[in-house]
């Protein structure tokens, strides 16, 4: 219905384009001009420039000996072991942190979505880590897992005296997954908002029909939350695949020049990409692997988008069905 109204309005705008409509369009472009200029100058042009660079041997200084190297930068990536190490660590980090992160966020939201004294305080405290500035959050989290001065080994030592596990190196990906879970409060708040949008009549109707709490959750609440889950999974995946700062700062040996001297087996995709560009000045190769990454992200997003019709519940469809 709404779509039809919009279409009708758009058509009439196109036909007549009254003075008023023209003024409105002018204002629209005036207000969005900064974004449009930024999009063209700081996104679109760099994307094209980067893509062009990825087919050359550019290293930051060799403009006069610049050579077109075809797709060599791209094929080289697939022949480099570090590339595959980074990719493997990244995929398993992103998958585990997105899945566990969303489950944990949903559980916390469900726990807090009930009448309970002190609910606001708990909500605030669980949310707190999610708004810490990244660089400080990583330093703090790294400290509790420190081999000699962390509280984790200190607590374990109470049961097994002398525990000195080198968490950060030996449990590299799991510790980073835990770090991402520390920020689960962000997702929790969004799920809480989603839960508050579930009409209570629906839940009560289901209960009157004899559904228990689990049935209400899995058959009423969860389907209504799937759009929120979808949104969270897509953005969460795009974000966690790009893990970079957290890894570099957690390893904690960014030298004075910022060069990464992390062992290769700990690489993430973006860490590898970063070091190729900014430690070794391999711009052409670096942009090429960032484009491989971009294409990968696009494929993941498209897969999620196309499978979403099988598991994401759209209220609009329901309304249309009702109207028909």
């Amino acid at each position, binding site marked *: 219905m709404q779509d039809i109204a919009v279409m009708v*309005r758009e058509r009439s*705008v*196109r036909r007549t384009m009254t003075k008023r409509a023209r003024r409105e*369009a002018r*204002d*629209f472009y005036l*207000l*969005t001009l*900064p*974004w449009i200029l*930024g999009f063209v100058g*700081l*996104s679109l*042009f760099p*994307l094209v*420039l*980067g893509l062009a*660079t990825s087919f050359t041997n550019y290293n930051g200084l060799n403009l006069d000996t610049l050579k077109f190297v075809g797709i060599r930068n791209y094929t080289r990536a697939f022949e480099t072991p570090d590339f595959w190490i980074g990719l493997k660590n990244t995929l398993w980090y992103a998958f585990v942190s997105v899945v566990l992160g969303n489950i944990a966020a949903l559980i916390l939201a469900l*726990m807090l979505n009930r009448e*309970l004294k002190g609910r606001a305080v*708990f909500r605030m*405290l*669980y949310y707190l*880590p999610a*708004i*810490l*500035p*990244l*660089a*400080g959050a990583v*330093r*703090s989290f790294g*400290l*509790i897992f420190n081999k*000699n*001065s962390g*509280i984790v080994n200190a607590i374990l*030592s109470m049961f097994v005296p002398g525990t*000195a596990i080198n968490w950060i190196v030996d449990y590299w990906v799991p510790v980073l997954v835990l770090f991402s879970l520390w920020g689960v409060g962000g997702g929790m*708040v*969004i799920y809480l*908002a989603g839960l*508050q949008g579930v009409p209570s009549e629906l839940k009560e109707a289901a*209960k009157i029909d004899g559904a228990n709490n689990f049935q209400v959750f899995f058959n009423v609440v969860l389907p209504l939350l799937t*759009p929120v889950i979808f949104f969270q999974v897509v*953005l969460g995946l*795009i974000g966690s*695949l*790009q893990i970079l*700062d957290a890894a*570099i*700062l957690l390893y904690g040996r*960014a*030298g004075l020049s910022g060069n990464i001297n992390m062992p290769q087996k700990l690489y993430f995709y973006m860490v590898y990409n*970063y070091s190729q560009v900014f430690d070794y000045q391999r711009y052409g190769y670096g*942009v090429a692997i*960032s484009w491989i*990454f*971009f294409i990968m*992200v696009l494929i993941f997003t498209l897969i999620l988008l196309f499978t979403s019709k099988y598991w994401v519940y759209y209220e609009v469809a329901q309304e249309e069905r009702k109207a028909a």
Partner: protein
Amino acid sequence: MSAVTTLQARIPYKPKIKVGRILLYIVFILVTLVFISPIIWVFLTSLKLQSEYSIYPVVIIPKPLQWINYKRALFDYPYFRYFWNSVKLAIPTTAITVLSSALAGFAFARLEAPFKRILFILVLSMLMVPRMVTAIPNFMLFAKLGLVDTYYPWYLWALSGSSFHIFLFRQFFSTIPKDLEDAAEVDGCNRFRIFWQIFLPLSGPVVATSAIFHFQWAWGDWFTPQIFLSELKTTLSVFLARSYPDPKGLPLETVTFAGVMIYLLPMLIIFFIAQKYIVQGVVTTGLKG
């Protein structure tokens, strides 16, 4: 809940409720401890002597508390320079981003224009572009323009707004009834005044949410200052990524963590003042999608 349903629903469970409640609170408190333990541990560590930093058994509460670490973190090292750099980077960036995103969000929510839909799809699709893909050529570009090692790249990015914030504002402004601006238009207000005097004042929680998220990013970002700024211009996040050296060049961790505590402080203060608005902002913008 009405009295009748309360009776129906509650009576059979009444004996269980008390125990359940207590268990629930125990779970809540345990989770709280897990969530805040890193911050408490940083705080305790920042009050230790360096010789207490990594001894076995681990010192939990140092005696006496070394408050002097805070003084040393601030005054023995160029802390204020980097603090000021962070301020110069983060505050204008946040203010400009919020304003330009609000303007664009307003336009997308309230005005009709040819190609609007395509533009909005472009705004959203920028959320999918990994930052490395644009960061490398942006770096090459700004290096050519001589803007590396200044804060202008941040201000320029801020001027063009950010997809996420444009989306936030657009969602919120879409919910405001049309009559409001019609009345203002009849009174002869121009579009900018309608935005400034009607829409912006209504969007307090969204402005707060958007500003806090962006400030958090700008204050905590390590990657961009690391590649764009030199040793003297860089921010606290880069400065504190390494440990302070003592006169022998060994890392002075306890003093560093005092510095980390002070670095976290502005965000903690903002959070405790504004956390109500953030939650409200997340709800009202329908961040849920």
